[in-house]
């Protein structure tokens, strides 16, 4: 039995992020592993010992700060559970919260969990009125160092990351931490943070299975992992590569 906490499911769910939780559940169930999802939000008591996987998606700038105020209560527990090797999948601006701070539009510094050394700068408001110039928007793809498959996704964000010491993917298409950067995301132990928003685990079935397999093997090293070929997810993934990346 795998237990997943969908953190702040009702705020950090701006771009179809519910797909990620469903992908994880589906992929576990294909391996005949039961999977339970708990939906947790502001003012709920979150037990960071209880779950195998924590997931959080993208929110608006205001929503993100509401969440931060709640999450700060658990700063120590979050840090400990990351060190203990719990799985954290943080997509979109959720991953900003694990850095040192966010500098907002007005230049104010908002303290974050301070678990990792990076910080976020909201893209300045002076270009706010022009067609979304203040956000980084577009298809993104790149390679991670643990899987021989291109990671695909989409970004739509109002922040840039600075002083990051680790990465998730090396960019082939699109931009990284900030427009000049070729690296994107953060990987530390079993913590994965990435600006790739929306249904990342639906769109990258190989990535999903990589983690599913790793999690299952950690619990049962003799487990025989079933391979599913030609699923619609895989066809969608390959078609996208063909049409837009390669």
């Amino acid at each position, binding site marked *: 039995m795998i237990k997943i906490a969908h953190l702040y499911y009702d705020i950090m769910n701006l771009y179809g992020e519910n797909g990620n939780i469903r992908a994880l559940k589906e992929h576990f169930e294909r391996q005949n592993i039961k999977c339970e999802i708990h939906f947790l939000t502001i003012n709920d008591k979150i037990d960071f010992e209880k779950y195998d996987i924590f997931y959080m998606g993208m929110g608006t700038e205001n929503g993100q700060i509401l969440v931060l105020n709640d999450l700060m209560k658990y700063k120590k527990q979050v840090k400990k559970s990351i060190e203990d090797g719990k799985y954290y999948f943080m997509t979109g601006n959720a991953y900003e919260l694990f850095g040192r701070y966010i500098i907002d539009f007005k230049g104010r510094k908002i303290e974050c969990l301070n678990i990792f050394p990076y910080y976020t700068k909201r893209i300045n408001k002076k270009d706010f009125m022009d067609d979304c110039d203040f956000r980084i928007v577009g298809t993104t793809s790149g390679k991670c160092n643990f899987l021989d498959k291109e990671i695909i996704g989409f970004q739509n964000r109002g922040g840039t990351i600075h002083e990051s010491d680790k990465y998730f993917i090396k960019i082939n298409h699109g931009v990284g931490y900030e427009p000049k950067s070729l690296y994107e995301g953060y990987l530390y132990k079993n913590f994965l943070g990435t600006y790739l928003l929306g249904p990342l685990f639906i769109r990258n079935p190989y990535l999903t299975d990589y983690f599913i397999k790793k999690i299952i093997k950690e619990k049962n090293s003799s487990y025989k992992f079933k391979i599913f070929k030609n699923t*619609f997810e895989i066809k*969608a993934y390959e078609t996208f590569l063909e049409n837009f990346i390669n």
Partner: protein
Amino acid sequence: MRMALAIIICKIANTLSKLLKKEGTVIGGYWALKIYPNVLNNIKYPKYVIGVTGSSGKGSTTELISHILNKNDITYAYNKNGSNAVNGITSLILSNTSLNGKYKKQALLMELDEKHMVHLLKHFMLTHLVITNITRDQPPRNAHPEYIQSLIKSILKDNMHLIINVDDPLVYGLSIDHKGKKTYYGMDKTNYSKASNLHNIDAQYCPKCGSKLIYEFYHYGHLGKYKCANCDFKRPNPDFLAHTIDIKNRTIYINKDKIKIPSSFLYSVYFTIAAYSLANALTLQKDKILYSINIEPFISKRLNTYNFYGRTWQMLSSKNENNLSYKQSIDYILHEKGIKTIILGFDNSSRRYKENDISWLWDIDFENLKDKSIDKIVVIGRFKYDVMTRLEYAKINTEKLILIENFEIDIVNVLKNKTKGNIYSMVCFDKENELKEILKKEGITND
């Protein structure tokens, strides 16, 4: 002098464009602004300058307002073709302005793009602004609903009369600090009222105190009757409340008056009540407003019906990157009688830009299609595997799903031989045009 020149150039450019069989509604504005960037600052505007904006429903609302103004003998111009950005509106205004800069009609009515109007309204003022809703729509362009809310907020002035949908907490939130006139409209509970199971409701937290809003019911998305558990923020009592809603028989009540709605879609309740509320804000006579809505026919442009070898085929244009547009098509289909075949799919997420985000597919309640009245779902288009994945995750019986690889070649045969019941295509405009072409080749038109 520059004014006259800008107006003349605008008219000539539009006429030439029309002669070349182009739309002729945007290019004139473009050239006029090149010649005289502040031309709109120096127009003598009429008594009524009406804007209609929001993520969806603004086109239909504007159309119905146009119909009401027409039947009330008010002279007006409006952007009938939907050119709702800066050049289109400039062209609309200048086409109806004398060379001395005086706008020639009694009212100016504009469907306004919620993003572009920020630029436009630097140059002139609205007397009335209708705000229909602020929902997830084209995120690569619009970021997210709270961003659009902040843009609309930046153009509000206290001398504007706001006509707003208070069922939407993001829209109502805009009016809290507004010191000018306000007219609130909203809708009572209907038999369509159902919450989404996707946990993707926007604006769930109180804009005043940050506590979670409690909903008595949802219409769709975050529209419904809400209140904050902690402070006094709540959906206020609407000045004009649509109630006793009978979608099937297309009748509603607005306060004490029985009103016809033009189609069996829930959104037609909203655009009817929005237009009705605006007409009241203009202090038109009530009997004339009622006459124009109830007696004179008004046909909404969105419904297209064809006869496909003895089966009814309805084209429900659904806007990509707008989950609630799809949801309303789904709700409509589910409330129709009989066995149904559905066509789904798209080639591009957007007509406006090249970005192909597909996250919005996961915000649509496709789970609701697990309904025994649905015989088959036919999936077409460049993103067919993504759509199939989504439907599979919605746990729709795979025997009900038909994937078409070669759409142009196979669609007619598949529909004829492998599906039954009435057909509902809920695809975006580009695919809809292709379907129309295919039907045309079969000799099927809706003339």
